[in-house]
């Protein structure tokens, strides 16, 4: 009766073997999730953060570097101090602090490192370095913080900060991790890809308590980090610092461009701030303070503030008129103040006189001639056609849309088109008398200080410009900068038309901005006044110098400082002197500007 039972038992043994092997096959061979979980268990992926690229000025002076900061770490289990008093003396820490930090570290983990003394300075680090060997369980980790030795050009350089959720979402290649630092504004933001370098990865093994057990597979999968690229800025640090000094206590912008290259020599946004405030651990609290400041130091005025161009726009009008053939050097109009207000000057004037005297009625009449060319019998239609044609020429001067500087959030200003007026007044319900303010740079048009400086460069170059930019070389190589910064852009006005303009601008200095004159440098400039319905007008001045061989083109905006001939012209003149002579001799004028009592 029991003869079959041994067979049954053998079958049971074989079945058990098969069941075990099947289940093992399922988890070992078919399912690879356990392998991943094992790696998550025992292999820790450590990111080796690269050294962020440095930024130099055009003369090789350092603008931004990485300042190493040392954190003294402790592994509580290995830490052993016999003489606490002596320890506190060497490491310069209060006994209570030591006990508090140590207890906290112990509570976190007795085998994983915690910070004992954060941000030990380089000098302190040198002092404690030799003693470290006497204290087991202590070691130092290094991290770096962006540092700005001259505390200059804050808005141009920008800042770095922790990556936000939106940026993480946009990072489709998943380069960034939560908590990474990225450039958030200015050059740091725009050149993030160049500056950041390439993260390295180290795989190390840890046991169940998180204790380091050496590198994984002898480091075969580790990759070294690659330091970020160094940028050479177009900024002339000395000029930048000088400009910041002149603009101290004022609100406004200074943008200086090398006309032949479009390189920005100085870009001052006043008021500014110390960029070191937004570096490292103080970012959070300092950003809050700066952001709430009602003078808005974080607002990058040169590329974000927009003003009506005012009288300076008359030069653009002259050039377009000349190119269109509507104006010639001999075109004369009477200074008819019934059309638009003007100031006292001889009348009638030719084009030269109109620029020199900034004659409003002249441009009122000249602009009408440009707009109403009687292409259509319908005066409304005619105005529409004329405006759009004129607008095309204006846009070529880099107005009406962002110039494409190497910074984000550049504003483009605005040059109204016919559809703009159609929206406001209705199709066929507006004509020249509606838009005539444009003739003298007022009304519905807006420009940024950067665009104004670019205009000065165009005047200096007699009809072309390079997109203004802040970086001239990457890793010392000029050809690595973007193609668009090396492309010459024509404004569509023949060079010979500029001769008269340049002469008139040089002449105008003596008429409207005598303060700006420099004895041995010929400055060609034009004052402007940006009307400000909220208060005092803004003082504006654009210029280039020397007239014969322009080295610098500049636009200066000083808010609420009234007429352009005083604040803006004086500042621009000093900047030109500083740049060309490297030394300012007119100390009286300098004092006048620094004092800032222009009204």
């Amino acid at each position, binding site marked *: 009766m029991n003869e079959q039972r041994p067979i049954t038992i*053998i079958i049971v043994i074989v079945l058990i073997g098969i069941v075990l092997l099947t289940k093992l096959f399922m988890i070992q061979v078919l399912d690879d999730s356990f392998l991943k979980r094992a790696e998550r*268990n025992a292999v820790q992926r450590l990111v080796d953060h690269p050294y962020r690229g440095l930024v130099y000025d055009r003369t090789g002076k350092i603008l931004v570097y990485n300042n190493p900061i040392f954190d003294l770490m402790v592994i509580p289990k290995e830490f052993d101090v016999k003489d606490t008093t002596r320890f506190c003396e060497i490491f310069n820490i209060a006994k209570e602090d030591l006990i508090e930090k140590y207890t906290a570290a112990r509570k976190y983990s007795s085998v994983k490192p915690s910070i004992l003394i954060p941000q030990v300075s380089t000098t302190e680090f040198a002092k404690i370095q030799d003693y470290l060997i006497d204290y087991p369980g202590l070691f130092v980790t290094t991290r770096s913080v962006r540092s700005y030795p001259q505390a200059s050009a804050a808005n141009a350089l920008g800042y770095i900060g922790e990556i936000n959720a939106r940026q993480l979402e946009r990072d489709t290649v998943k380069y960034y991790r939560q908590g990474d630092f990225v450039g958030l504004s200015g050059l740091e933001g725009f050149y993030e890809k160049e500056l950041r370098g390439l993260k390295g990865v180290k795989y190390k093994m840890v046991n169940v308590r998180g204790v380091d057990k*050496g590198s994984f597979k002898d480091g075969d999968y580790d990759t070294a980090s690659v330091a970020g690229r160094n940028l050479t800025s177009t900024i002339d640090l000395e000029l930048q610092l000088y400009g910041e000094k002149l603009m101290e206590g004022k609100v406004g912008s200074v943008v200086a461009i090398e006309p032949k290259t479009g390189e920005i020599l100085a870009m001052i946004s006043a008021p500014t701030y110390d960029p070191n405030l937004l570096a490292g651990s103080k970012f959070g609290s300092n950003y809050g303070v700066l952001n709430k400041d009602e003078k808005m130091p974080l607002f990058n005025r040169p590329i974000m503030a927009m003003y009506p161009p005012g009288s300076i726009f008359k030069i653009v009008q002259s050039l377009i008129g000349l190119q269109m053939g509507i104006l010639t050097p001999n075109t004369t109009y009477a200074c008819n103040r019934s059309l638009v207000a003007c100031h006292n000057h001889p009348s009638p004037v030719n084009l030269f006189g109109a620029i020199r005297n900034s004659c409003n009625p002249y441009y009122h009449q000249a602009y009408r001639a440009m707009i109403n060319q009687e292409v259509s019998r319908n005066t409304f239609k005619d105005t529409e056609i004329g405006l759009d044609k004129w607008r095309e020429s204006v846009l070529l001067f880099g107005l009406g849309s962002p110039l494409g500087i190497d910074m984000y959030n550049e504003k483009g200003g605005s040059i109204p088109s016919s559809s703009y007026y159609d929206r406001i007044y209705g199709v066929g319900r507006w004509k020249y008398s509606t838009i005539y303010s444009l003739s003298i740079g007022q009304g519905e048009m807006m420009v940024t200080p950067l665009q104004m400086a670019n205009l000065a460069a165009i005047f200096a170059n007699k009809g072309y410009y390079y997109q203004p930019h802040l970086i001239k070389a990457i890793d010392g190589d000029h050809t690595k900068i973007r193609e668009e910064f090396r492309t010459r852009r024509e404004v569509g006005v023949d060079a010979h038309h500029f001769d008269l303009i340049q002469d008139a601008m040089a002449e105008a200095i003596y008429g409207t901005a005598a303060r700006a004159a420099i004895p041995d440098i010929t400055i060609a400039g034009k004052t402007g006044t940006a009307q400000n319905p909220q208060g005092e007008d803004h003082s504006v001045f654009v210029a280039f110098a020397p007239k014969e061989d322009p080295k610098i083109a500049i636009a200066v905006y000083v808010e609420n400082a009234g007429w352009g001939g005083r604040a803006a012209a004086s500042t621009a003149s000093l900047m030109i002197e500083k740049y060309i002579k490297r030394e300012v001799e007119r100390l009286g004028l300098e004092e006048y500007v620094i004092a800032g009592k222009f009204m």
Partner: protein
Amino acid sequence: MRQDDLYINKIDWISILIYAALVIIGWFNIYAAVFDEQNAKSIFDLSINSGQQLVRMGAAIIMILLIMVADYRLYDNLSMILYVFFLILLIATPFIGKEVNGQILTVGIGSVRIQPSEFAKFATALALAKYMERPSFDLSQIKYQLQALAIIMIPVILIMLQPDTGTAMVYFAFFIMLYREGMPQKYYVLALTIIAISLLALGVENNLYLVFAIAAVVAILIFLGKKKISRIISFIVIGLLMVAYVYSLDYVVSKLPQHQQNRIMVLFNPDLDPLGVGWNVTQSKIAIGSGGFLGKGYLEGTQTKFDFVPEQHTDFIFCTLGEEFGWTGSFIVILLFCTLLIRLVIMAERQKTRFSRVYGYCVISILLFHFMVNIAMTIGLFPVIGIPLPFFSYGGSSLWSFTILLFIFIKLDSHRIQMLGRMN
């Protein structure tokens, strides 16, 4: 002299070779389980487990020699005395033993400590063999069934009191031997049915499915068999009893305190509590599962080496094998165990006396239970009960008790010719 030649020639070298292979593979795995790359020590180093185990392996060889040279009649004669001796030792353990982790499981002098519950296995096996050798013993009778059960249950109760549920459960493996010796089949069918229904009742979310399944099985059985009214009624009654059992079990479980409910539910889904009760199983599965087909290579396992699996050199030693040698290694070891077990069945069946056959099946029962439950628990097929993998796991008591258990049978087997005529 002729007699000696006779028995040397009859020694079953196949089982001894498999035994040796398992012990040596086990020893290498113990070394791997405690290996620390940053503080590498020789496998022979006495300050680590592998060195210690080597000493115990040496002791095991001495035991084997003693077993082999002793008179084979000794085991027959000593069986009841050994059984009583270990029962007394089990009773005494809580009073003279040493407390480890809240349990008092070991007794001994100085550093040599043994776990009586391990050794009581072979003593119980000998006692069962001796008792069942009686000519009148017949497992088809309730009286004898109860007597056999009593011999098994006395050590079980004593071990449960220690408390060491895992080891106590091993004694139920003797039912495999009882099955071979003629225990009525209906008990096994009933027991397996109850176990299956219990597991299903706890594992299946909705009991209604289970009720339908029971109804379907009952209907099929009625339809297939003779259509006698009494038979149909009895099937229906059994079916209704099962349904009642399903619901009462759920009711009882729901009345248990929450943490005990968790303990039960984790058996079915360790992910419910991966850091608590489920930690061992989860980590063990990760270690074994990460081994792949060929394994990570000897001493290259990260999970076992870095202590992710608790008890990795004792109860969870299979993790090291699974991680470092992969499915291939698991296959070889499981094949060795199955081969050994089948070999032992063949050996048991060739015995001429009921004593040695019963003892042989006791050895098979215990090894099979340990082998199955230990590996099954490391891969989440069985709840975690702390029992070692025979010949593999670190620890003297485990190695020695399995060695003694096995080699007494090899010794008895080698004398099977001389025992002729004692079969009843």
